[in-house]
């Protein structure tokens, strides 16, 4: 057992957890942030993607203790109060989700993709970058459209692009 201190969605939290506790377990079971989903056990599906210190990370593939002191953003912390993040809005507007299970991970990864490509995105780049996130419902068609649209919105908002 050990103590892990994190800033999660802007709030400081300290939890005593088993050494083998995964970040995803800490978020879901100790903090009740159940928007982060578990779809596999080989870090392939990406449903558990969150941001750790600003970068997309598969939270089922890191121990909570490894990110001690880190800043975590989950899907629950992405919206700015009542205002949805442009990526969240774009997924809805472009029907980029069906069952919703892969969606939080998709959205967190998509935000990261946009940030890593300040020069802009092509459909081909979006598809390559989504290789680590599996969706079984949408055939990706509308997810790609949503990310493309949100990227344009984010990049026309300087503060968001620089985040």
């Amino acid at each position, binding site marked *: 057992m050990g103590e892990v201190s994190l800033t999660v969605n802007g709030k400081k939290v300290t939890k005593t957890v088993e050494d083998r506790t995964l970040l995803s377990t800490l978020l879901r079971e100790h903090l009740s942030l159940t928007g982060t*989903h578990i779809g596999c056990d080989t870090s392939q599906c990406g449903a558990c993607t969150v941001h750790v210190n600003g970068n997309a990370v598969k939270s089922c593939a890191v121990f909570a203790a490894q990110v001690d002191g880190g800043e975590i953003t989950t899907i629950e912390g992405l919206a700015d109060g009542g205002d949805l993040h442009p990526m969240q809005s774009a997924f809805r507007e472009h029907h980029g989700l069906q*069952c919703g299970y892969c969606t939080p991970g998709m959205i967190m990864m998509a935000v990261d993709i946009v940030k890593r490509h300040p020069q802009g995105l092509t459909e081909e780049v979006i598809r*390559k970058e989504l290789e680590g996130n*599996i969706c*079984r419902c949408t055939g*990706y*068609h*509308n997810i790609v459209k949503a990310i493309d649209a949100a990227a344009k919105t984010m990049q026309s908002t300087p503060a968001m692009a620089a985040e």
Partner: protein
Amino acid sequence: MGIEGIGARVLRKEDKRFITGEGRYTDDIVEHNMAQGVFLRSPHAHAKIVSIDTSAAEAMPGVVGVVTGQQLIDGAVGNIICGWMIYSKDGSPMKAAPWKVMDPEVVRHVGQPVALVVAESKSEAEDAAEAIVVEYEELPAITDFSKAMDAGVPQVHPEAENNLICDWQLGDEAATDSAFASAAHVVELELEQNRLVPNAIEPRAAIASYNKAEDHFTLNSTSQNPHVARLVLSAFYNIAPEHKLRVIAPDVGGGFGSKIYIYPEEITCLWAAKHLGRPIKWVADRTEAFMTDAHGRDHVTKAKLALDADHKFIGLKVDTIANIGAYMSLFSSATPTYLYATLLAGQYTTPNIYANVKLVYSHTTPVDAYRGAGRPEATFVVERIVEAAARQLGVSPIELRRKNFIQTFPYQTPVLMNYDPTDFNALLEKGLAAIKYDEYPARKAEAEARGKLRGLGMSCYIEACGLAPSKAVGQLGGGVGQWESAEVRVNPVGTIELLTGSHSHGQGHETTFAQVIADRFGLPVDNVAIVHGDTDKIQFGMGSYGSRSGPVGMGAIAKALAKVEAKAKKLAGHLLEADENDIVIENGELKVAGTDKKLAWHEMTLGAYTAHNIPDDMEPGLSEKAFYDPANFTFPAGTFICEVEVDPATGVTQVINFVAVDDFGVIVNPNVVEGQVHGGLAQGIGQALFEEAIYDANGQLLTASYMDYCMPRADDLPNFSLDHVVTPNPNNPLGVKGCGEAGAIGAPAAVINAVTDAVGHEHVTMPATPEKVWRALQQNRPAMAAE
């Protein structure tokens, strides 16, 4: 239609919770005093269980208890049922062997549950499961099901001699044979349907709890059909009578068929919740899902097509062996028979069709309905052999199809189905226009100049969905009715709760069903709440599978709405002192036609509930129920055209263009329908190019994770080009046909027709991996070089 009515691209109401992380899936739910369950599973495909010693596990930290199969048998828990009786051609019933919930004596596939460990935490339960000592006596296994009936192979069940469950037939064999005797041309093809794993991204999960004082169970579960779950848990598995068991299917993360069935895990957890006195949560990990979710497809088929001198199809004969796995799952008998051979006419006037299907056991995970269920297999047979026939005869596959298309409707096929109207020529024309068929030779030449091989293939599918008239299903051996129910509760303030027996696990019912109401009464969709997935709230429901939420679920809604409308008009007529037949409802108002007299919707609804001034023969309130049993199956049809590019150096196939033109009848929400098609196409392309569950000769599942089973990813797939032909379904109150499975049904044949066109070789099996395509090219090298 109004801005939120039928046909409008209304954004989904349910999305808000999913994009903010507020969805509520089974694993997100926590019950007071809940313990965690973990199943110990067989590592062997076939073995006798000599002994199970749980004593060390029970002494482990945090362990609440361990349940083994004998306890369930002693507790009178019933065997798992197959819900559809079929008969062999000699008239004998199928030989279904007992499926014990956790067989304490024999394991018959890798992953079969042997014990449930319940502990305070999942990790403690996992640790304890490892401490259970099971002594197995390993037995030889049969996993190559095409050899399951051979002499001397291992037997799965004593009840099914030679592993043969049923030797089933459909059609007139003598007439078909005589068609072949008179044929000018006969085309033969051997085909394989690869075994697939449905792979909803949310793994199966259950939370079972028991209230001792009330002697009442609650099951939260990842179910596509909670009432069906409650019915079988009550009637067959003896968990509790229906009024003592509530089944809730909260947000469910995809199903694709795999969450229709009631599996050993839910049954065991319910029993254990009572006997251990704790709520129990069980959540499958991905490898458990691979080993235990019902798999799909898995056929080998020999097909032959007879043509006359004018290239008209005169006979089709099909011999199929279908793998059922180790046990007969709920719809496992219907899927490779009545959901398969009844579609072998396809879009064509073939007058003589005969199919023989042998259903066999093997030491593999049970196989059952997966998105499309039988119809992808039928479409693959028909559309592959038609394409092969065109190539063999040296005629255009387009012209060959046109020559044989059914042109007049309704059309009675020789294999039971009576098709609704559609327009196969119009579907094909739109498909050819969308793919820019006339420019294809130039694209092919351009690819050739780069050293790449282009191929183009099409698939003109028809399917039967919306299962279906209960009487017809009953006559064919189905064990349940296939109607749907709905209840429309209009509140005093005029808002509406719609309670539906359909279940949404991604299909968008909270939006589309609200649109049906918005359309009828001119109310905003935000004034309508959809209630589903809870046996305590909804009167009954058969759930969602077989593309039935649209044609059957919405049929029930339409029927209940008609009752609401009739009562609303009667009341409005009374209040406005007008004839009820003169009342029209539009834009949220009830108007007397041709006058300026009107009532707001909420004035009428409030009047119904105050009941101060209603007709003497009218009951107060405004709430109506309906059960809707369709008059026929529905018959979505379409043309899919796939263009691929193969790299001859590596065998890698890339889908360049994919066009899907469908006739789904009336479309309620184009966004949702297109999304369903996209997803279906991805699964169909996945079957054709990527996916396959593989067992080794010992019965080990080699593809039990996303590292090994190739799921289609974003960069494996193209943008899809969709179009529609709309022929309203005359047998449905809303004119809809259903759209959930079409993509998965039509796509594999289109892709493989394109790949075999590129390769110049008919024998490329699914999935057409780079290795298989490359090898096919090497075999064909002399022919290719000579071309």
